[in-house]
């Protein structure tokens, strides 16, 4: 367990050099600058995820990690924990930033728990798909994957907005709003299952890799 904490701490340390970049990025895409701040919720946690994984995807870095007195599966698990924790922090930062922007623009700060939970769960699903692909493709393949994923996130947020305004989706949304606890629980279960399967796949890929 302590190894896991040290590995997550290592990821935080490695991400420190991107803090200013992420802050500038967050402000640019927030409600302070943009009239529609929704891309921020998709882009910032996604970027944090990519940066956290990129930090030690180079072969020498992976060799360093494997030389530590830690099981390989812990190295993979730590990536999930770090990515989840960092995405959560990025998500909370987005919320704070947009709430601040609302206040500055004289608007009331409104929180939509169902909507926020949906976004968060979508990001977790994104993470569950992204990490195994990353382990499978390695650093070079992952560069193309990153571009593809950024496009997916950008187009995806637009598609999601369109989807949410459709009549049948609205009905589903209403049903979810009517039963928020059940909908939330179902969403959390799906996301958790996706993460467990994703971890199993990533672990299997990394366990068979020569470095």
């Amino acid at each position, binding site marked *: 367990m302590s190894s896991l904490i040290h590995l997550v701490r290592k990821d935080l340390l490695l991400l420190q050099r991107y803090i200013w970049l992420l802050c500038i990025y967050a402000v640019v895409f927030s409600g302070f600058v943009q009239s529609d701040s929704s891309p921020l919720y998709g882009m910032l946690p996604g970027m944090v995820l990519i940066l956290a994984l990129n930090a030690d995807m180079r072969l*020498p870095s992976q060799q*360093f990690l494997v030389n*530590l*007195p830690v099981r390989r599966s812990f190295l993979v698990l730590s990536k999930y924990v770090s990515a989840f924790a960092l995405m959560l922090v990025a998500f909370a930062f987005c919320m704070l930033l947009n709430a601040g922007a609302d206040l500055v623009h004289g608007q009331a700060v409104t929180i939509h728990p169902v909507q926020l939970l949906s976004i968060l769960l979508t990001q977790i699903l994104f993470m569950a798909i992204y990490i195994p692909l990353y382990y499978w493709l390695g650093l070079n393949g992952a560069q193309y994957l990153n571009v593809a994923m950024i496009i997916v996130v950008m187009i995806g947020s637009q598609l999601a907005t369109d989807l949410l305004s459709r009549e049948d989706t609205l009905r589903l949304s209403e049903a979810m709003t009517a039963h928020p606890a059940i909908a939330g629980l179902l969403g959390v279960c799906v996301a958790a299952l996706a993460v467990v399967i994703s971890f199993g796949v990533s672990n299997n890929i990394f366990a068979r890799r020569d470095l």
Partner: protein
Amino acid sequence: MNALEVKGLGKNYGNFALRNLSFSVPQGYITGLIGPNGAGKSTVIKTIMGMVLLEKGRISVLGQPVTGSEGSYKQYIGYISDENIYYEYLTMEQMKRIVAPFYERWDEALFTQYMELFELPKRKKIKDCSKGMKMKFAIALALAHHPTLLIMDEPTAGLDPVFRRELLDLLAEYILDENNTILFSTHLTTDLDRVADYVTFLNRGELVFSDSKDEVLEHYVIVKGSGELLDADVRRELVGVRETAVGFEALAKDRVKAQALFGDNVLLERPTLEEIMYFTAKGGKVTHV
């Protein structure tokens, strides 16, 4: 007792393979892992460290079996890679802060002592360090957690002679503790002539020998004589031959047999590890000069 045992190690890469390697590294001694470039030295070390996965055979380190997934045995190993494996954009102090918590026996005072000995500035970024500084930093990190087995992959390659000599002195000091063991991979055999107790020689993925250095140097012999002594039967007894205008120089595996074969017609000399490596790598190929 052996600090490291390798039995029947096999790994196939298509164009290169390690074939049924078996050797051991006795505890309390310095063992040199030698061989020309591409012999498989780094692959063997990477397999011991879990970077390359075992296909065939088994490895045990300090009595613990090595598997690709297990990591706890590395608590007792200090590993020094032939190239920098640390995060280039971090300072040495930041890198140390990442490494130290993983080791139960991390000794901060010892680490500082090595950093001072090697005159390494803690706040310097690794990317701004010379190759020698990076190697010194790797040594400081490896030794600061009191490893009982030190594994070094080509640590002296590219280093200046002054630091190479200092490193060998450091190793001699480390091995004074009889619980400590060193496995030292190199193709610069002059380093091993100075410090090694045992030698394991790999060539083209196969084990040539693994024995005490003195035994090896006693057993093998350099034969120098006139070219007319060389016929097909004689050549079969030689590991490798180098022919010149004035005669030949060859390596024989068995000094006693060579003495019986040539009598007083040749000059027999004790070989160096480099000569053994050279003639063995050349194999049956005759070299004309």
